[in-house]
């Protein structure tokens, strides 16, 4: 093992190697969070299935029946669910990761490991929920006898995009939250606001064309449209908007990682 040199102000040269060496911790932290969630519950893991299912039912009733949002060519529940999948992944990943550092303060002040693993594990937990919801989606497709087109093979790419879109702001906010605890109030607001602004309950085709580009500044617009395109073959995927969303997600990711790494060395002192 090469010598380790610790010096003031020097970015950790071995950081990315350490991240690989401690990769098992990512699994363990995520495992812990999932286990703890369902301890002493009666229904237990069934909640992981019930939650997205019930949300879809409510949305179908409110947006589909009551507000009568258009649903070209596909059953409304499928339209909603295909968007809810990435949205719930994004919102829970964002919520969990933004509080993760402060929530694990006892670890940060007592043990060394690359701190990126903490918000990372929060996103992994959300991903597990995502996979369960995905199984429900498969069930729904079977129920409506809907077979996805060849675009579905692009789905993993959009999943990765959703992952990165959640990670960027998550890292940023969790690092900010360590020093300025205000940010824990910002997240629920963003998530609630975002749910109505993002094309979850409706298709982005309803947005008037002159506003479409501005609308695509929201990185989740691209992700959700992409999901709908891949699963349902919808042609609401508007490529200029999608590229803009992609760029925004990448921007947030880079900003998040840079800021996190810069503030990481002060976490133990400030938290």
């Amino acid at each position, binding site marked *: *093992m090469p*010598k*380790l*040199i*610790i*010096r*003031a*102000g020097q970015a950790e040269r071995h950081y990315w190697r350490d991240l690989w060496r*401690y990769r*098992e*911790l990512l699994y*363990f932290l995520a*495992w*812990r969070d999932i*286990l*703890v969630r369902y*301890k*002493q519950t009666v229904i237990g893991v069934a909640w992981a299935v019930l939650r997205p299912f019930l949300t879809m039912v409510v949305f179908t009733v409110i947006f589909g029946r009551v507000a009568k949002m258009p649903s070209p060519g596909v059953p409304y529940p499928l339209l909603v669910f295909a968007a809810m999948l990435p949205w719930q992944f994004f919102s829970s990943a964002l919520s969990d990761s933004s509080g993760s550092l402060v929530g694990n303060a*006892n*670890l*940060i*002040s*007592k*043990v*060394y*490991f690359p701190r990126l693993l903490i918000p990372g594990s929060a996103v992994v937990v959300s991903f597990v929920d995502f996979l369960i919801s995905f199984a429900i989606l498969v069930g729904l497709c079977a129920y409506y006898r809907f077979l996805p087109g060849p675009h579905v093979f692009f789905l993993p790419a959009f999943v990765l995009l959703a992952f990165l879109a959640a990670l960027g702001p998550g890292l940023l906010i969790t690092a900010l939250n360590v020093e300025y605890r205000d940010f824990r109030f910002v997240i629920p607001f963003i998530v609630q606001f975002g749910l109505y602004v993002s094309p979850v309950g409706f298709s982005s085709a309803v947005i008037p064309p002159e506003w479409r580009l501005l609308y695509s500044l929201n990185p989740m617009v691209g992700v959700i449209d992409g999901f709908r395109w891949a699963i349902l073959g919808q042609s609401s995927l508007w490529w200029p908007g999608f590229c803009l969303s992609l760029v925004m997600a990448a921007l947030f990711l880079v900003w998040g990682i840079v800021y996190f790494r810069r503030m990481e*060395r*002060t976490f*133990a*002192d400030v938290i």
Partner: protein
Amino acid sequence: MSEAIIKVEGLGKRYVLSHQGGGGSRQGSKRFSEVLSRAARAPFGWLSRAQGAARAARSQEDFWALRDVSFEIKRGEVVGIIGRNGAGKSTLLKILSRITEPTSGQIEIDGRVASLLEVGTGFHGDLTGRENIFLNGAILGMSRVEIKRKFDEIVAFAEVERFLDTPVKHYSSGMYVRLAFAVAAHLEPEILIVDEVLAVGDAQFQKKCLGKMQDIAGREGRTVLFVSHNMGVVANLCGRAILLKGGRILRDGPVSSVIGSYIETGATITGESTWAVDDPAAGNDRMRLRRARILSVDKVTGDVPIDAAVTLEFDFELSGPSSSVTSSIHLFDKQGVWVLCSGPASEELSPGPYRQAVTIPANFLNDGLYSFSIILLRNVTQIEVHLREAITFCVHETGEGRAEYGGVINGCVRPQLSWTKAIPT
């Protein structure tokens, strides 16, 4: 073979203390009342600005937890880090463990480090003992394969086989601590950094922990950095000690002399204890202990050379009717081991103040801290006064008879016994 495994040069760590609500003039007034009062003082603007500057200076303060610390540790050394609370020991360990960054200086480490700064880091109450072993092990740096391999050993050490599958929040504090220490004790790093975690559990468990630490330090030949307030354990485990004071190294050398310096600079052992008339611990309205002193080499002192006799002199008061009084002392060493009891025959005493003394001969006690408990009995069996740890004193080496061996000599006593020469048969 003994090259430096840890090299620390000019290490410094500075914290900026911000005194919340102290000044406020630098951050701008957050409260309306301050705005008003400032406006009222406006005519004397120059005065209030000077005051504001002083207040601003006070509201942020530099605190150097460590300053200019340099030392080297060789492979296989067991080094104790001692000092008063606030001397910088934990900060040093945190920096060596990469939890916090130094402000200045440099450290070179050539080996895998595992830190034990707290017992049960990452333990979650809702998870079972089994789950927590894996979680805690992973957090401390063990791989899953390693934990599986050592699982049975860990459970056996912690003695929690029956409760392995109950949530840890239902454990007693003793069980919790045993489990936490058991996981940590089975780390196998090249460098182990331990911060005062042995002061947990009951006496039997502490002995077990100590034994395990001795295994790690002595037999397995790992490099250990050990912080503790228990001088006995430090003297037992470590060959070398570093004394920190105010963030700087005061002394770095063989463990018994550094401990001696620690005791001297501490000055908490003065060689004299007194008790107020109404102190419930020191007696009741029939018999009462007033004062105890340690005398050696004709003076009152808390620090006694190993080759001088130690006299305990105590003053007590008898009220009420005359009775038969028996005095007794118990002597305990640094690890709480009961060294001896001693007491004279009973005496019939009339009420009034008394002074009594007992002397322990020279070259009898080992080096280190000892404490006396003083007991006064009436009519041979009735305990009127039982003052534990009435007075503490420290025996230090003088170098007598140490020409050949400079290491730790164990034992609660170290009498000079007579030895014959080896005679060929």
